[in-house]
């Protein structure tokens, strides 16, 4: 594969797996809602990297198209998500996930 200029495709997949795991770690360990949300976006972009890599490998456009769909959905999700975060902040004056815990038995 001359166009890859010597960078093996596996490396992209490994990078994508690392990014995905970083996203999971961020989701689980960060306490700020915005950072948690960014971690989810990181996971989605890791997926995009995998799609593009596979698509390049197969010489198909399916993966590229899938990436566009993921980007559009991520944008819609960001719009809704930030609006929800805003209402939470308006009512509670906090962005810490641990403070949003009034629902209990």
């Amino acid at each position, binding site marked *: 594969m001359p166009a890859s200029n010597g960078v093996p495709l596996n490396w992209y997949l490994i990078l994508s797996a690392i990014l995905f795991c970083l*996203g999971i770690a961020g989701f689980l360990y960060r306490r700020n809602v915005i950072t948690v949300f960014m971690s989810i976006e990181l996971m989605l972009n890791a*997926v995009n990297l995998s799609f593009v890599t596979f698509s390049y490998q197969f010489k198909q456009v399916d993966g590229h198209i899938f990436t566009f769909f993921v980007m559009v*959905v991520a944008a819609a999700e960001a719009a809704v998500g930030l609006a929800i975060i805003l209402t939470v902040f308006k009512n509670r004056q906090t962005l810490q996930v641990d403070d949003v815990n009034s629902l209990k*038995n």
Partner: protein
Amino acid sequence: MPDNFLPAGVEYLRILPEIILTVAGTLIMLLEGLAGDSVKTRNGPGYLALFALVAAIPASLVAGANPGFAFSNLLVIDGFATFFRVLVVVVGILTVLVSFQYLRRENASSSEYFGLILFSVTGQCVMASSNELIMMFIGLEISSISSYVLAGYLRDDKRNNEAAIKYFLLGSFATAFFLYGIAWIYGVTGTTNLDQIRYALLSHDVASSSILVGVAASLMLVGLAFKVSAAPFQIWAPDVYQGAPAPISAFLSAGPKAAAFAIFLRLFMTSFQPISGRWAPFVWSSALLTMVVGNFAALTQSNIKRMLAYSSIANAGYVLVAIATHSAIGTAAAMFYLAAYAFMNVGAFAVVTHFSRQGERFVNIDDLAGLGWKQPVTAALFSVFLLSFVGVPLTGGFFGKFYIFKAALDGGYTWLAILGLLNSAVAAYYYLRILVVMYMKEPGESCENLSPLAPGVSLALWGSALATLVLGIFPSVILNFARGSATLGR
């Protein structure tokens, strides 16, 4: 360019329900700007939504009468898709009926609300008929993103906010897992079409990368387990169903869940059917854990919405038992159970909507004390749903459980069927406790000033109760249809 580049006319017919729902939803959003939010026009969007949903039922049947693929095999319209389309549309109708009074009571605007319900149902219809991982993903997201907004619809209510943020964060997290699974399946098989994935898994080329297939399937299983609130990924469900507006809790625990089970069944019974021996142990262990966690946590709840949330988790466990059998009988049993469950669950939440009053003040089980004497009809209808949850004969819940445990026995999961039965015995305790509170306790102050049933709620309650009884007395009508369409591995 292929000569069939433009879709044939019949393909539009096959997505008629989605077209109707999307047009009506968009119209509602547009009309809001024109009509303003005066009291006179307040119910307009609701009626339009109701009309569109009712029209979507014959549209689904027309689509189902013209089975086949649509849009380059992106969608497949078969009996299975028709079944779930009609189911989610009916759940939409019941939710809209319950919502009229709720929105008036909470003094909330209604156009976005009904628009979002229509969009969410559209997404669920797409999920039911998807034949391609891309469509599954898009349907799932259309349904989920609308649901995130609906869960937090009353913007100034802290409980709504909390439900929305938890639903949103955990839902998106789950979607990311599902997507990463799709990416790896695409990487291993080179396709996202469900049938072609199946052929690829049957061939020998893929056998060499069986670990990667397993990883991909597990990632998708994790994503779907989140969506159907299966243990150990059920933590969001109690908070979301407790915090969301009561009609939306009804909707979320019936519609999106049924649609998520639809893609679960289609994916695992079509694409991953060749490796069913490998995923079945994960599904049955999750089923067992889900039943135990749901039922035992529900025992100690005092908030009725939270109790119904745990009950909804436990019920997802029963459906997973049916899926674990990975047989056509199991699929039919799961379909029947999801239909029976949808009616009793929406009915129960409709009673909660009616009883809780403005601001959802009365949501404790003890508040229901004496309801049997104050409003005998409401209490009697509620009893039908509760008895159906318990699985008393002549209700849909009985045959639902019966077919699931029968499928488990036929599939050689005798011990799983026994543990499931023991679980339903535990569950009987917390459902019957409500009956005891309603009929054997003196009415307290919570029963004072209880308004009579609003027409919409009344219609939804009678409709759900009737459906629950019909499923319990003539189960073969639905079951035969489910059996006829349960053979997904083509």
